């Protein structure tokens, strides 16, 4: 079981919220999952680097040269709100005020 402070702190990173009932459920389920994955502590890995040591090492890179860009009209068409060449979002001023206030 994880505590309320940890739950709230991680939720702020996740950028979603939970109802009070969901929070209680989550605390228990996440606690169980973390206890389960902690079984990895039975594996001795001291002095072992985590370089993956397999096929994932073989990353290839594209040649560094200009290529045709993505047609902007296709991107714009997907946006919930696009005006005058900008993606528009709700106001952020209040948040800035809050941050300054906290400072």
């Amino acid at each position, binding site marked *: 079981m994880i505590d309320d402070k*940890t739950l709230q*702190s*991680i*939720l702020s*990173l*996740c*950028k*979603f*919220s*939970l109802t009070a009932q*969901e929070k209680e459920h*989550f605390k228990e*389920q*996440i606690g*169980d*999952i*973390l206890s*389960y*994955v*902690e*079984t*990895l*502590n*039975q*594996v001795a*890995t001291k002095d*072992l*680097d*985590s*370089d*993956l*040591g*397999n*096929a*994932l090492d*073989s*990353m*290839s*890179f*594209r040649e560094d040269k200009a290529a045709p860009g*993505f047609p902007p009209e*296709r*991107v714009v*068409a*997907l*946006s*919930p*709100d696009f005006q005058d060449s900008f*993606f528009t*979002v*709700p*106001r*952020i001023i*209040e*948040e800035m005020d809050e941050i300054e206030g906290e400072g």
Partner: protein
Amino acid sequence: MQNIRQLTLCGLKQALENKACTSAEIVAAFKQAYSEDQCHAKPLNAYIEFFNDSIDSARHADTLRAEGQGGLLSGLPLAVKDNIMIQGKEATCASRILKGFTAPYSATVIERLAAEGAVFLGRTNMDEFAMGSSCEYSCYGPTRNPLNRDYAAGGSSGGSACAVAAQLAPCALGSDTGGSVRLPASFCGIYGLKPSYGMLSRYGLIAYGSSLDQIGVLARSPEDIALVLKAAAGHDPQDGTSAAADVEAPFPLTPLEFKGKKIALVKEFTEKGVDPEVYDITGRFAGWLKEQGAHVVEISLPLLHFAVPCYYIIAPAEASSNLARFDGVQYGLRDEEAYSLEEMYVSTRTKGFGTEVKRRIFIGNYVLSSGYYDAYYKKAQAVRSLLSRECLKLFEDIDFMLSPTAPVPPFPLGSKVDDPLAMYSTDMCTTFANLTGLPALSLPAGITKAGLPVGVQLTGGMFSEKSLLQAALSWQTRGAGL
């Protein structure tokens, strides 16, 4: 001619070449079957969308073929999992957050298959963002198992597996991050290949766990998988993890001679937690391999016990990063009621993501956060490294590793959805192949007393797809009826 829907992809290819039917007739047969299933009291829910224009694509393919044009897959239909982008079609990952999202470009795999003349039938159902083992975590509702509609089809590519098994498509694309092609293939009684990491381009596959994701193929015959692999494989500069050199794509396929082959039966996957019927079916498969002249040895690789906990740190960590892009700004759902930017992020993601996705994003953020990173994420990466080395070393001595695909037969719908650890344990035998990058194939190996399919899994060395599919063809032609 045999019923069109009963034919394999290779069978349909032959029928088209012999002018026994047209591509339009093939697509019409699948469309009619789909429409009929929609009227069933318990629809399978294999497709999220059957493309209305698929018949037009088929007619176009027929015209090209009449003119002597058309490629390896000319006029052949395929179903596509809802996380692989087809330009101009919706791609939602079975999530509310992407409902209405139209793919602005096609995945490389789609482009290659289309260039060879393939016709896409529709988008198949899946666990949201491929996070699940039963195809029940979908905003479109669960996919049902075609052999018993009250049972799960397996996941996350459950829609693809169900479509193929129910003859609503001859072949389908899926994706496999921890078993998502092989588990539903096992549950639905068909073949499902997760290729080696890098074999098929991931460009245009909506990311879940980037170091684990791989597009795979589901079919009723290993030859069909070989055919699709031949058309889709090859280096792609758009995917930095695509195999640097062109790898051998195995088509046409010949059966494998097992004499002298060394096959390791993995103790860790047959001891604890394995259903007795699954155990027996795996044992019978091992017996068949011996009859074919293979040398089957029991081995123990204790680190395999830790593949699932290792996976459930690394996959959520990567998911939490990949899914950060869904914030309501550039595409997808946006909560228009939100007053501030922060509120928009939070309310959009709260409304857009389902419970399992939220659980994994939470775990991912937890294991990557300051104070927990070393204890969880770094530890998991070290275990992954160790596991990779041990597996690669093992394949210096053996040809294949044998295990069940899933420790259990298909389970009733709803029986595990609220118990994440029980659901995760379904991945017991599959996650190690994603952690190590190795190719693995599920073969339909038997039926339980209740009439439900059970698959076995063969894993090979890196880029050994040809041998794996040859082995499967031997089973299909010489052993599957046993």
